[in-house]
């Protein structure tokens, strides 16, 4: 586990990510209501919830693609609410976006190298990524426009890792992918966690997410309906929080 987190004046470890009473809007539609989430360095946290519950909005707000209307996002003890997305990358925040958004006119290798443009130094290099996701090395020269869904997802994760993030945000990791592909992606995720990277995992596949994470938050219509250690959450609790029963 990494111990590079900042400490507060009284010596206590500051959490890596603090989402404090964040509210977000799309026009008139409020997507998040006073959401509070705290994540410590090295944790893996799942965020589950139905379609439209606000999961992707939450990740976009942390990554800087959206500005919260109210509340604050703190990273390593410092408020980052005013920073645009490209300035959050050098701090160590990386988002693997929903739909992967691979650059079609860059090759696989170029997509990875562009991920290191403003990143931090660290264990993740081109060689290391190819070791973790061997399928990428085989297709290194192929254009981004010509990849399958699984290849795109592995590449999107690799691209985010090239910046050596402290916080990796994964949006809908398994959406639309074959079970064998999902299995290999989650195997890669274990390696990422072993490097001490903090992971926030947004999934519609609840079982998969809860198995991979230590803690989970459930979002329901923009509010947190449940949170706790995944080992202590019961199936009934999760179903209730997921559907608002």
């Amino acid at each position, binding site marked *: 586990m990494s111990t590079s987190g900042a400490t507060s004046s009284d010596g206590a470890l500051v959490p890596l990510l603090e989402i404090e009473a964040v509210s977000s809007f799309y026009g008139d539609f409020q997507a998040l209501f006073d959401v509070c989430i705290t994540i410590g360095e090295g944790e893996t946290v799942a965020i589950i919830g139905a379609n439209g519950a606000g999961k992707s909005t939450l990740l976009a707000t942390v*990554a*800087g*693609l959206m500005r919260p209307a109210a509340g604050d996002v703190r990273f390593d003890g410092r408020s980052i609410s005013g920073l*645009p*997305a*490209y*300035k959050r*990358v*050098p701090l160590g925040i*990386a*988002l693997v*976006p929903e739909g992967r*958004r*691979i*650059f*079609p*006119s*860059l090759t696989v290798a*170029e997509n990875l*190298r*562009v*991920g290191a*443009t*403003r*990143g931090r130094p660290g264990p993740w290099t081109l060689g290391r990524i190819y070791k973790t996701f061997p399928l990428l090395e085989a297709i290194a020269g192929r*254009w*981004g*426009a010509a990849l399958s869904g699984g290849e795109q997802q592995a590449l999107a994760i690799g*691209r*985010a890792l*090239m*910046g050596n993030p402290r916080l990796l945000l994964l949006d809908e990791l398994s959406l639309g992918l074959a079970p064998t592909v999902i299995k290999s992606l989650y195997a890669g995720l274990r390696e990422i966690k072993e490097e001490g990277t903090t992971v926030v995992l947004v999934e519609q596949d609840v079982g998969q997410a809860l198995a991979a994470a230590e803690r989970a938050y459930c979002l329901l219509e923009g509010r947190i309906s449940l949170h706790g250690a995944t080992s202590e959450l019961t199936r009934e609790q999760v179903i209730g929080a997921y559907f608002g029963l």
Partner: protein
Amino acid sequence: MVWLNQVVQGLLLGGLYALFATGLSLVFGVMRMVNLAQGDLIVLSSFLAFVLAGDLDWNPLLTLVILIPLMAILGFAAQALLLNHTLDSDLAPLLATFGLSVIIQNSLLEHFSGDTRRLHAGAIETESIRVTGQISIGWFPLMTFLVAVGLLVALQLLIRRTQIGRSLRATSDDRRAAQLVGIDNRKVYGIAAAISLATVAIAGVFLGVYSNFSPTSGPSRLLFAFEAVIIGGLGSPWGTLVGGVVLGVAQTVGAQVSVGWGDLTGHLVFLAVLLIRPRGLFARPELV
């Protein structure tokens, strides 16, 4: 032989049109922005070269050492101070560059009057190589063509092989995803505009030596640049060169048929390409 000679002259003229079109194509490729001031910026460069060459008593081709960086800085500044603020709308960039076009034309008229001018580059303007009895290749058109080829090779290498090139392509593909890997898309747009206006500086000087120019020559240069880009296909440097050559050959061959038919034939070939291959001869499929 007369016809072959016209084809050769048209091919070389295509080099000049490729120079006109390169910056336009780059800016559209990266930002999806149509620069309606392209022609006037080319003519502005011709006038700046005219002033510099006169004041310093330099060959106008030599003024490029000042003009290229000067126009690049102007491009970055215009992008950062003005055009970056218009990019969230489809119409605003068009209006802004149209406004720039009007401002440049009228400022040039104010300072230089409506007289036509010409840059004088010395003996290279008139000397030529006689290939056969009826075909001779002028040194200056040949040099223009080679400069266009060299510029496009350099640009292709920059876009394909360098980190700046990767950032340009990534931003062109998906600017939000580019932000997620730490790329400031506004800065990338500034770099694209700077490179574009560096090519405009070259186009302006070669235009000024090649033919007369006046403050109102810009729009017709813009039209030729557009036609070259559309014939060749957006986003492809080699397409830009081929587009320029097709346009140049159409014009010179048309002019051989009848003196007044030169430009018209160019426009007709352009329309024919639009009808048969609306994406141009070398379009990058992922851009469409």
